[in-house]
């Protein structure tokens, strides 16, 4: 473990360890002290009891003045383990009995430690409490501690009336029984206690440090390390890096806000790149326009001139017409580039879709031949002319056909192009641009798109769990994205994801299955109702239904190519999404989507891997 004091973890471990060491030391100190005190008072009590026992057992011999007996008793008791000294002093301080024979007959200094308890005052005290009679001392500084206890022998009637007449009636204290007990054992116990306490403290600190270190590693070091790593990656320009922390704590919040920040940054960068792209494209367009237009002038003037002169030669005329038409188309493309530089709106005219498709087919005919692709055209020849920019629509169809050719490759596939006039009820066509909950919260979720459009986000509860679901933003379409699992025919409970208010209707029931109905408030366009039964597709939007059916031109472009997998299918209309790798810019389908949307139309895609893909475009035959 390398200690780096700059690290939060090390600092935290250090602070906590010191605190714990302090607390445990204090605890240990007081605990040892208390235990020692207890032991000493136990020893004290024991010594006191012993001293009382001796006083009582020698009493009779004293009265009988059998000094030998007293000596025997004292010597025998003095042999007991732990008793360092046992002696009896007379009133004058002369040692009359002692287990140490040498002492007998010596005088004890009144100021000696065994006497000072009573003799500190001028007038010696006669009555003492047990505490006052006890003293702890060392004979040498190196020897173990000793507890001494004195027990005054008071004068009694039997004493001064005894035959020996050794004592007078006036005397109060006749002598002192002084017993000293070694505290070596107690001190050893206390020392052991202290040691085990220190050991326990150290072990505790070690365990806590290990736990803290692990916790710090998991709770702080790893997420912080991830954050630092992510910051470095972002600094190096990788804005797609995400931390995706599952944690809910402050660091988790930091991580998710970091993710959010990089996401916003990368979105901004995409926009920046796109606007950069657009700006440089504009400059390029303006510069290139002149260069392209001059040679085109030669082509267009000569070809239209020839066309004028070969009116009688239908074969040549037809070919020249192609040249003139395609040159004019090039001119319009260059003009489109210039217009684009000026960000003009599409030039609306009347479009004959069949003609536009024929133009596209003429352009790609060669490529179809090379790739051995069979083209099946099925036109509705009574197609109405629709309003729009024919060049843009041609670009859309051309792009889709080229995509189809790319998807087929060299596998002898088929491309089908069908057109027909259809009448669509607003059901399945009308887009929902705005939806609100009863409390007015916006339900549109621009982050979750269905068929390229922002979906309607709702909180959903099933019998098992709850989560979010996204409703298809096209009235009558049911490409909903369910975030949680539902059982067949289960009633889905729906709530506003912002305020949690229910959006279910209290009264209305679906006419098909009688299940509860949900209400989406569409600002200025009434209420959209729908059935909450899983699998039931009933929806009703009175405001739109009133406008009645309208005519559309349907263009279906199918190919027998490699297909698009489900995961990619959701994203193909996103800008910069490309499956062509280096070959594509990823702008094609997003531009197509934008053009169709500008024409108030709709584009959808169905695809199956290895079976093929089918794009369906609906363009309104009329719009304001």
């Amino acid at each position: 473990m390398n200690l780096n004091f700059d690290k939060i973890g090390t600092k935290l471990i250090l602070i906590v360890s010191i605190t714990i060491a302090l607390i445990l030391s204090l605890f240990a100190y007081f605990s040892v002290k208390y235990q020692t005190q207890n032991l000493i008072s136990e020893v004290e009590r024991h010594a006191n009891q012993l001293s009382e026992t001796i006083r009582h057992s020698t009493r009779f011999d004293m009265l009988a003045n059998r000094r030998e007996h007293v000596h025997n008793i004292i010597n025998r008791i003095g042999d007991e383990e732990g008793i360092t000294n046992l002696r009896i002093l007379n009133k004058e301080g002369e040692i009359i009995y002692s287990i140490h024979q040498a002492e007998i007959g010596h005088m004890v200094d009144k100021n000696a430690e065994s006497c000072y308890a009573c003799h500190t005052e001028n007038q010696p005290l006669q009555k003492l409490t047990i505490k006052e009679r006890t003293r702890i001392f060392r004979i040498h500084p190196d020897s173990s501690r000793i507890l001494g206890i004195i027990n005054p022998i008071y004068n009694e009637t039997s004493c001064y009336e005894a035959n020996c007449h050794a004592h007078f009636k006036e005397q109060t204290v006749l002598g002192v029984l002084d017993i000293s007990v070694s505290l070596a054992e107690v001190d050893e116990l206390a020392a052991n206690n202290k040691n085990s306490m220190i050991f326990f403290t150290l072990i505790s600190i070690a365990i806590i440090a290990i736990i803290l270190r692990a916790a710090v590693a998991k709770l702080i070091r790893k997420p912080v390390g991830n954050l630092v790593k992510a910051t470095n990656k972002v600094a190096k320009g990788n804005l797609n890096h995400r931390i995706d922390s599952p944690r809910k704590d402050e660091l988790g919040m930091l991580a998710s806000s970091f993710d959010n920040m990089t996401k916003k940054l990368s979105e901004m960068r995409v926009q920046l790149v796109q606007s950069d792209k657009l700006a440089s494209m504009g400059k390029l367009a303006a510069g290139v326009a002149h260069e392209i237009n001059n040679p085109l002038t030669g082509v267009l003037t000569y070809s239209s001139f020839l066309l004028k002169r070969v009116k009688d030669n239908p074969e040549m005329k037809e070919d020249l017409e192609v040249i003139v038409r395609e040159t004019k188309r090039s001119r319009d493309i260059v003009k489109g580039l210039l217009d684009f530089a000026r960000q003009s709106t599409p030039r609306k005219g009347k479009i004959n879709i069949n003609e536009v498709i024929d133009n596209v087919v003429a352009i790609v005919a060669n490529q179809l031949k090379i790739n051995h692709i069979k083209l099946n055209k099925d036109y509705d020849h009574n197609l109405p002319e629709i309003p729009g920019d024919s060049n843009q629509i041609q670009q859309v169809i051309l792009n889709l056909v080229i995509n189809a050719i790319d998807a087929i490759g060299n596998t002898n596939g088929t491309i089908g192009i069908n057109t027909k006039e259809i009448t669509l009820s607003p059901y399945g066509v009308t887009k929902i641009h705005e939806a609100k909950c009863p409390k007015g919260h916006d339900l549109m979720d621009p982050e979750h798109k269905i068929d390229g459009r922002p979906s309607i986000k709702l909180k959903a509860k099933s019998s098992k769990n709850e989560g979010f679901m996204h409703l298809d933003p096209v009235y009558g379409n049911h490409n909903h994205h369910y975030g949680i699992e539902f059982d067949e025919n289960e009633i889905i409970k729906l709530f506003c994801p912002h305020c949690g208010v229910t959006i279910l209707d209290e009264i209305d029931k679906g006419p098909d299955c009688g299940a509860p109905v949900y209400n989406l408030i569409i600002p200025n366009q009434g209420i959209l109702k729908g059935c909450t039964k899983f699998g039931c597709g009933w929806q009703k939007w009175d405001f739109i239904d009133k406008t009645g059916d309208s005519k559309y031109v349907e263009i279906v472009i199918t190919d027998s190519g490699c297909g698009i997998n489900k995961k990619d299918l959701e994203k193909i209309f996103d800008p910069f999404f490309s499956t062509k790798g280096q070959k594509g810019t990823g702008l094609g389908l997003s531009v197509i989507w934008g053009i169709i949307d500008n024409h108030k139309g709709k584009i959808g895609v169905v695809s199956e891997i290895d079976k093929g893909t089918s794009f369906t475009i609906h363009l309104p035959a009329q719009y304001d």
Partner: protein
Amino acid sequence: MIKEKNILIIDDEEVILNAIKKVVIYEGFTCDTSFSVSESLEKIQETRYGLIICDIMMPKIDGFEFLNILKKRKLSTPVVITTGFSTLENAVKALYEGAIGFIPKPFSVEELTSMIKRGIIYGKIYNEKRTCYLHEKKISLDFIPCPPKYYRLGFDSWVMKKNEKFANIGLTDLFLKSIGMVKEIEFMNTDEAVYQGGNCIKIIDNEDYCHQLLAPISGKIIDINEKIIINKSLLEKDPYFNGWIYKIIATDLDNELNNLTPCSSDI
């Protein structure tokens, strides 16, 4: 002795010169070609042309400078400006500097001939102001100028500012006269956007030549004069008042008026 020829073509690219020359000769006009402005200035001294077709981007002296030189020399030969750099700004500038028409490259023979045809008549009306015959057809050569307070884009279109936002636009009598007989008019739709210098109306004459009128201002069409649709002769009778074409909500009226010629200067 000054020679007379119909058309002088100025362009620095030989292919384009030859192409235009071919068309011009095919249509029965006489013409000269020139690679540069300085060369053409010499030619103008020797020959009187009915129309000059001039490119903008040329080395040394460009098309706009050429228009200025003509203005200084008080030469009123009508000039049609053509360019590959066909932005709306260039169209507006060309007409403002005195060109009678703007034809963006690349052009088809039809587009070129209708412009040439209109340019030649224009020259005759403007310079001679007398009845003449072109291709054996009688053309009235008197034209009514724009009323003062109006602004015009070249001699193509006019705008009458009603207030800060709204304006009426229409076509000048000279433009109409240079077309000859109007067979058909194709209008844009209401709510569509027009751009200053961009096409706003298509007029097909009785010889099926198609003429584009350039809009004098940018904005959104809010109304089309139904009376013209019913009665085309209204345009000829009253081109400046009852013969208005579109009512427009202008996007940038005051700034765009700076690119236009005030009609008060015509009188």
